[in-house]
């Protein structure tokens, strides 16, 4: 009986490399669009959270708490299996972008809120005292300072988002994890399939995580 990592299994994988390449590209696309959506939602809801208007704060809390305290898998299942019952059929790629985008948007909203709240209140007051509007003060004074503090945790969110796209495999998402899973379930060559897949995720996430660490160190030095 050949072991899980027998040589011919690796050869089979090399022969079918295009399957993995297709999944890898889908994962990159999904991550890029998901991250764009997550950033948009995160900045919008994060700023709502820093508002003094109670309704805005409430909207921020409902979004953040609801999304952060339910599993991503259930949210994806809702989009994929639930929405069709309401007459909304989304292509699985859209389910993926929406799923990870909305999920990480909630985490990014907290990063943005914390970043803005870390800027001393006096900064906004100084800007107001010079005639800046709320948005003028935000754009020119507060957000540039919040940005520096928010970069490392934002990069961590990007890393988590990339890894979490693998959840799409459960609804035939067409991304890397799905292709690895379906390829190896037909020939049972699970060993090489999952090792290579893991390394491919690593190749995306490790540079980002390293970048985040370096920025964190730089921030420590400059403060």
């Amino acid at each position: 009986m050949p072991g899980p990592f027998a040589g011919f299994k690796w050869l089979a994988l090399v022969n079918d490399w295009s399957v993995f390449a297709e999944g890898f590209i889908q994962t990159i696309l999904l991550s890029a669009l998901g991250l764009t959506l997550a950033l948009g939602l995160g900045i919008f809801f994060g700023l709502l959270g820093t508002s003094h208007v109670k309704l805005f704060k409430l909207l921020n809390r409902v979004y953040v708490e609801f999304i952060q305290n339910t599993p991503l898998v259930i949210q994806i299942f809702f989009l994929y299996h639930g929405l069709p019952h309401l007459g909304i059929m989304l292509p699985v790629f859209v389910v993926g972008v929406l799923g990870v985008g909305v999920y990480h948007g909630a985490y990014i909203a907290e990063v943005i809120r914390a970043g803005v709240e870390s800027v001393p209140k006096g900064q906004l007051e100084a800007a107001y005292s010079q005639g800046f509007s709320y948005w003028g003060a935000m754009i020119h004074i507060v957000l540039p300072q919040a940005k520096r503090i928010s970069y490392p945790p934002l990069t961590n969110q990007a890393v988590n988002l990339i890894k979490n796209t693998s959840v799409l495999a459960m609804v035939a998402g067409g991304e890397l994890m799905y292709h690895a899973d379906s390829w190896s379930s037909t020939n049972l060559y699970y060993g090489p399939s999952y090792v290579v897949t893991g390394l491919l995720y690593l190749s995306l996430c490790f540079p980002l995580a390293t970048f985040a660490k370096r920025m964190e160190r730089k921030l420590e030095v400059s403060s």
Partner: protein
Amino acid sequence: MIKVQGVNKFFGPLHVLKEINLNVDSGEKVVVIGPSGSGKSTLIRCMNLLETPSTGQIVVDGVDITAPKAPITKVRESVAMVFQQFNLYPHKTVLENLTLAPTLIKKISRDEASESGLAFLERVGLREKADAYPAQLSGGQQQRVAIARALNMRPTVMLFDEPTSALDPEMIQEVLDVMVDLAKEGITMVVVTHEMGFAKQVADQVIFMDGGTILEKGSPEHFFTNPEHDRTKLFLSRILR
């Protein structure tokens, strides 16, 4: 220039300003003193609407800033404020701190704003720090930059909210010197401070606040030599020693 009429301010159940009436004439230097918690900072912060009065009216240069939809950002362009904690923009250089609002808000050209900014830095003795960042300056230097930043808006009123209270003792004088120099001009000044020497030297009117009310107001001569209220006498005896 500034008319405060029947102003009350509540923070939750706290009644921090009680029926305040005050007139500041154009060009007048008004110094507000009083123990901490007396409401003096809240009062000066109402004058540019950083705090909104709960009731009452404040008119600045003919504009009722307490009216709904008052053009407050417009009014703030000509009412500059200097803060206890300086509040310079840490991500901008000293000169950028001076030119940011004039170029973005008042739409003055960058060259013109830089030129006048450098002149004001010269005046507060910090022209050579134009390209430094605020964090590289001492507290006294930061506050002088903050004054130059306020001046570069060409304001008609300058509000000072305890400008020397966060400074090391040996840096207080350099800031006061700049303020005394400034007081020689026609600009209207409202200064919340504990610096009695400054009050004696420049004030046209001294206001003593306690417990959210104006207990006593008058000329420095009256105020320091012949105060009416026992509370004022007690305060002065403690602070002048």
